[in-house]
């Protein structure tokens, strides 16, 4: 390999990127270490979060984050995939571009705007439709998150579907496959790596979205009663960090507990991306 200035700077850039990622995870681990050392893993299963009484139970927030993730992915992935399939297979070119443009605009809207839309439009609607005490709930958080990740998944899925060569579709037609078979047997398996990256990106955003979730989830540190009750106010890991980070003094146990929430989120994201990478068929 020639050691030209270009190759050196490219290598340096790559090194900086890797070091930043490792430094981030190391920082999270280092700041949350006092918390893990004092309480061990037991607090993950405790449901009492009262910092002033030195109780730092993470269970309600973890359950809330998991529910928000499932609801968001459950709504967004089918809708976005459907939009991508319609756009790349059925729509004429000008409509495709129009849809793509509108999705890109949607993807660029700041998350706090989604939070305000949720607060002023979604919450009253939820309150009236389900006759709830208040619209603040995990369902509200999940719906707002699904709205935020829909453009991302749709755009990447559409790109992946477009990359499947036209010859594949023509060959399928010549073989007499109907539309269903063409979609499920030919197009989707070949476009799957691209679709999967889109879903992973969206998952990262769902796990990490703070502002919008904080405004609509209710921020109440209580386990949903019963566990599948997504219509009651609850807490997520990001909402808790958002609400309490300003007042936790740097270096205190409260700060470490909040960093532990961040570490859990980072570890989940890393684990999910590693897990899905291993299932890649090596082409």
């Amino acid at each position, binding site marked *: 390999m020639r050691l030209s200035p270009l190759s050196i700077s490219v290598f340096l850039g790559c090194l900086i990127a890797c070091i930043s990622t490792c430094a981030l995870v190391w920082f999270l681990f280092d700041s949350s270490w006092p918390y893990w050392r004092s309480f061990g893993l037991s607090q993950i299963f405790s449901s009492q979060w009262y910092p002033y009484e030195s109780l730092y139970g993470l269970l309600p927030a973890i359950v809330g984050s998991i529910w928000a993730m499932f609801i968001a992915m459950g709504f967004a992935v089918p809708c976005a995939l459907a939009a991508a399939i319609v756009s790349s297979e059925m729509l004429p070119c000008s409509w495709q571009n129009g849809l793509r443009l509108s999705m890109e605009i949607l993807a660029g809207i700041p998350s706090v705007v989604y939070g305000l839309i949720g607060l002023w439009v979604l919450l009253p609607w939820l309150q009236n439709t389900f006759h709830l005490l208040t619209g603040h709930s995990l369902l509200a958080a999940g719906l707002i998150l699904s709205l935020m990740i829909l453009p991302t998944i749709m755009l990447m899925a559409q790109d992946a579907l477009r990359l499947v060569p036209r010859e594949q579709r023509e060959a399928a037609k010549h073989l007499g496959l109907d539309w269903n078979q063409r979609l499920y047997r030919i197009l989707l398996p070949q476009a799957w790596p691209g679709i999967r990256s889109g879903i992973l990106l969206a998952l990262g955003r769902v796990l990490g979205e703070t502002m919008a979730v904080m405004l609509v989830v209710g921020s*109440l540190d209580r386990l949903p009663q019963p566990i599948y009750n997504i219509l009651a106010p609850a807490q997520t890991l990001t909402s808790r960090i958002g609400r309490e980070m*300003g*007042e936790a*003094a740097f270096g205190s146990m409260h700060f470490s507990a909040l960093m532990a929430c961040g570490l859990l989120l980072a570890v989940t994201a890393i684990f999910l991306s590693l897990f899905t990478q291993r299932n890649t068929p090596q082409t």
Partner: protein
Amino acid sequence: MFKSLSHIYLFIFSILLWHNAAFASERIAVVGSTTVLPIISQAASQYHKLHPDIIITVSGGGSGVGIAAIIQGTAQLGMASRETTKEEKTKLNGRINNITIAADAVAVAVSKAVYESGMHQLSLQNIADIYRGNIRNWQTLGGENKPILVIDKEASRGTRHVFAKAVLGSSHARADGASIISGSNNEEQSIISQSNQAIGMLSNAWLNDKVRGIDVLIDGKAISPSIKHVRDGSYPIARALHVLLPKTASPATQDFVKFLLSKQGQLIVKNVGYLPVQ
């Protein structure tokens, strides 16, 4: 427009130079309680008219955030609507002057629909029962048959400390009957106004047509959260509003605090709706 690279550099350099002139002025960052915020915002704009070279930025976050910012040195002036706790005092280590600039009442606020159904006063014990989850429906207290939407606040907020101390016994008391947790006065006000069965804690200057403050029953007497009752000490959920001035603060910051305590500053306090320091 740009004929060459050197022209671009010249353009960027001249913009930076122009902005540098603005850096000669002093910036004071004020952080903390959203109850004190209206006073400081209005005082800051008036002060800026008198001293145009001093720029004051005011942000919220709550009393806890304000005190933490002063401890960490990220703000020049802190706002708090409660006393500093023991842990905070140890961390502050005598480095600040805690100056009272006003006093106000924490009103027990209810939605307009609740107020108009006849709920005009509650005893401290009733309010405590609502926040502990022992009373869940307005009907139990003589109102309409609606479940109570109990709005609690983040544990570090000054309003919450003062409310919890007067109603639940200790400033960090648990409120197991809470339905949701809100943050700033703004957020609480909008949640109460959007609902028709809510109860919450709100500084009395933030009450409006949709968010009504109810009287507190003490020994059979109904005491409203008005300035009059704060002055004579009869309203139980009242507190002093402070600014935290570090002892090493710049002369401009100290002058701004003097302005807050002057006649002009205290007139702003009165206009916002709080009790001026006499």
